[in-house]
């Protein structure tokens, strides 16, 4: 059954926020949103398109029915509920760490694995400045079943650090169903994260 959200009678930004909540909580493949003003029609359509939905709208008298169908992708990180985190972040830097491999540095892979594991284990020493850790390519192996890094990443996530795992990489490496920690993500999330971060560390 298609999710239907009634946002009639609501002024901006309430309809966009309600739609965002539904996407966050239920990740529906499709949803219908009822609104009763032009601004809400435009805003909800723009929001859904930005979240990778295909959007169509029908006018019914003075009301509009907006139909969105998911076109792949997940919610961009800056649209997740940030209020509590943002309040704590006053005076704190936003450091993004991008982990691009299962190994740290070049040389013996066994050594590289161990170094990367130690690196992830030690990341928490960055304290509240650590904002986002994104895993791409073989780096996603740390976020899946069987990795010793999973409990440490869960601890970071519990502290409010965003953990992103590249969805295309998980699919490519047949690890999608083994994901243990973090959110399945895409290049848009990663690029947006880079833009919003005060500094980006690539390993």
């Amino acid at each position: 059954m298609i999710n239907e959200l009634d946002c009639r009678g609501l002024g901006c930004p309430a309809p966009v926020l309600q739609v965002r909540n539904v996407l966050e909580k239920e990740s529906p493949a499709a949803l219908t949103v009822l609104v009763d003003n032009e601004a809400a029609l435009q805003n909800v359509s723009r929001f859904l398109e930005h979240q990778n939905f295909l959007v169509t709208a029908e006018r019914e008298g003075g009301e509009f029915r907006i139909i969105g169908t998911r076109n792949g992708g997940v919610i961009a990180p800056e649209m997740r509920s940030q209020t509590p985190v943002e309040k704590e972040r006053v005076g704190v830097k936003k450091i993004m760490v991008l982990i691009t491999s299962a190994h740290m540095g070049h040389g013996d892979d066994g050594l590289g694995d161990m170094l990367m594991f130690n690196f992830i284990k030690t990341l928490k020493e960055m304290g509240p400045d650590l904002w986002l850790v994104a895993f791409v390519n073989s780096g996603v192996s740390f976020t899946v079943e069987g990795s010793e890094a999973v409990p440490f990443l869960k601890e970071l996530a519990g502290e409010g650090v965003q953990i992103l795992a590249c969805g295309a990489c998980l699919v490519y490496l047949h690890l999608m169903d083994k994901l243990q920690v973090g959110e399945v993500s895409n290049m848009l999330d990663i690029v947006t994260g880079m833009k919003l971060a005060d500094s980006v560390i690539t390993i």
Partner: protein
Amino acid sequence: MTHEKIRLTQTVKGAGCAAKLAPGVLDKALCGLDLPVDPNLLVGLERADDAGVYRVSNDLALVQTLDFFPPMVDDPYSFGQIAAANALSDIYAMGGVPKTAMNIVAFPAKTMDISILRSIIEGGLDKIREAGVVLIGGHTVEDSELKYGLSVTGYIHPDRILTKKNLLIGDLLILTKPLGTGIIATAIKAGLAGQDLTDRVTLAMTTLNRDAALTMDEFPVHACTDITGFGFLGHLAEMVVDSGKGVRIRSANVPMYPEAIEWASMGLIPAGAYNNRNFRGAIVDFSSNVSQRIQDLLFDPQTSGGLLIAVAAMEAESLVTALKAKGIDTAAIVGEVISEPVERIIVE
């Protein structure tokens, strides 16, 4: 104290969103009114300028304006500062010197602690004092939603009134503050804006346009307005309509908050922006390379926005340099006055 926890923007419907009556609607209410005629009324209602001007003698005229709105930020003191800076701005945009002010207050005394009102008025007074203006009174009514603003009276020389309607072909247009405060106010209301951005935007909105006005006074400025609820293109349209000239805007040069551009593409756009587009979109031609979200920013209703100044081309760079020397770092040349197409705005 309980009032510390109240978020002012959550107590009102409009906030940055839809506080100003849509421009087309206002025109319907005002058109065809039988207005009293007086030869000393130099700028009146029919001119739709920033403030009205009434001649007292050959070398003195009164310039009068008022402005008030619901809160667009959560902090009462900041709201007071912003509302006062916004009201004073109309006097500066006319080339006048503000002298006296009166408070305009609607306050929900049943649901809000009176100390909030005190903070708001203190914030307003802070800006009134900074402007060298005296507060001479005010009027307060009980209302379901909070609103605050000022009525301001200033002096101006009758021969030195700076209206919207004196564009000369070749003039360059300078904007002094970045666009995006309407979208950011919507994001603040949605709880999406971080403290750092809120602080930066609050600082910009509480900054008086006085230094910009004093600086431009020494340059061959032909027309000026301040950017508020009708948005950059809405206020620019008021300069262009009936001018016999056109305008070309280079959108890449228009100062904007990058966060607002991002939120625009996510649909955090105040209803006022759509009203502004519906009202003035017909005289604006966007090049195909101007993205939807940049168009939205150009129509975004501003609170206590910057001055939009038309100055002789030869002096434009010097004026920007002089503005920057006064700390107005975001001032930029954003466009030019052209002969054709007549009374249209081209945005590239």
